[in-house]
């Protein structure tokens, strides 16, 4: 396997048991390859399944069919069929995922939230905290906020904490779901810089960028998602 991410014949549908058993087919026969140092932008209208692709790669969603091979350590792991422990290992070391919403334990300081990926890799407390503060600073979160819990932050600040927490660790694979959606111009540029730097060091990035300026600035390639066949 040469690609960092290789998706073959991915199918994903949702069955809503409590709403008359409606079955919504979102992806069917989706293929994608992403290489090292490449940033792929998923594009298409809202509800077409862009986020679903990211979530399937992260194994946040289960799949109906297909393989999602992610290069991990010296081999590759099929995220569609991996054991939960393998999935957690891949998430810990290989895949960084910036979701649209920040989800953290209430009352945990922003600095500790950001340091966690480093801590879980075995970094010492001081080193991880220092790196976390640096990354928060870089995303213009003032030092006064570092010891506060992000639940009290504004939407834009929360999103930056979310970014910091992923970019603090050098993940080889990054999944970015509208990472700049609620950022102002200045911070959007910081985010663009971080993404470009990650691609520059060889990360494979898959992202959803509504902002065309951001997309143009970071993406090497755009993949257009088109509507699936009608629900079966």
């Amino acid at each position, binding site marked *: 396997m040469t690609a960092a991410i290789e998706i073959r014949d991915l199918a994903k549908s949702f069955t809503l048991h409590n709403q008359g058993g409606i079955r919504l087919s979102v992806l069917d026969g989706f293929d994608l390859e992403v290489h090292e140092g490449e940033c792929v932008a998923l594009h298409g209208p809202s509800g077409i399944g862009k986020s679903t692709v990211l979530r399937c790669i992260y194994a946040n969603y289960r799949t109906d069919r297909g393989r999602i091979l992610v290069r991990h350590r010296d*081999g590759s792991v099929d995220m569609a069929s991996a054991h939960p422990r393998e*999935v957690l290992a891949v998430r810990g070391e290989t895949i960084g995922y910036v979701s649209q919403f920040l989800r953290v334990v209430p009352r945990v300081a922003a600095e500790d939230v950001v340091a966690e990926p480093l801590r879980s890799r075995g970094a010492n407390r001081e080193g991880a905290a220092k790196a976390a503060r640096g990354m928060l600073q870089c995303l213009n979160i003032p030092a006064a906020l570092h010891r506060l819990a992000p639940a009290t932050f504004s939407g834009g600040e929360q999103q930056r904490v979310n970014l910091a927490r992923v970019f603090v660790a050098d993940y080889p694979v990054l999944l970015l779901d509208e990472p700049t959606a609620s950022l102002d111009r200045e911070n959007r540029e910081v985010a663009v810089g971080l993404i470009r730097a990650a691609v520059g060091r060889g990360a494979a990035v898959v992202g959803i960028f509504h902002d065309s300026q951001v997309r143009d600035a970071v993406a090497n390639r755009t993949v257009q998602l088109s509507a699936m066949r009608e629900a079966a």
Partner: protein
Amino acid sequence: MQPDAVPPLLSARGVTKFYDGILGCRDVSFEIWPGEVLGVVGESGSGKTTLLHCISARLEPTAGTVEYMTRHDGPADIYRISEPARRLLMRTDWGFVHQNPREGLRMGVSAGANIGERLMAVGARHYGNIRHAATDWLDKVEMDTGRMDDLPITFSGGMQQRLQIARNLVTAPRIVFMDEPTGGLDVSVQARLLDLLRGLVSDLGLAAVIVTHDLAVARLLSHRLLVMRRGEVVESGLTDQVLDDPQHPYSQLLVSSVIHP
């Protein structure tokens, strides 16, 4: 990566419990690895607590086995090993945190004695050392060490729960069973306790089984989830997978029933 390179710490196979013909839980199987936190969710009466008692040697199942990887003698069926060995496991290698701290604490003796008891139970006979360990653990669970000689009754519910946790962790167990550890606490106290538990579990590399009806608690603490209904596991998997992409009708109902403030 070889998932089977490390053997599981605890394996439940076909665990079934009937109370005089009334179903407690049926045919539950799972494995827990060192450092892993397993959440068990489901509504009241779904068999969560029965399952927890069955796998923690407190309630012998009607059928099925529970195997634990002992430190020195390899895997052992916890209901087939000798009673002394089982009781020793329960007060050294395992911890059990009750929803009601009164069930897990000795209410008539001080906080320090509550923490020191398990050490004394395994032979500690040096008062100074026991006291030192108690101070250390009060500190780790973020309690005021100056209150070491106070009775648990003088502590708030959240503090009693911390004390119960310290009392369990002082012998460096490898797995802790928790029954609604944050139940009955108000939300702000609950949040801090969750944070503490998460930190302890990851710093100590503890495995844990946490029974809760609170999906938010399950999401924050557990790596994997079992969803139980009417005594059976209807769905299992990675916590975020089960909560974000529930497959079973009951899991979907459970997830969609949560009220977001």
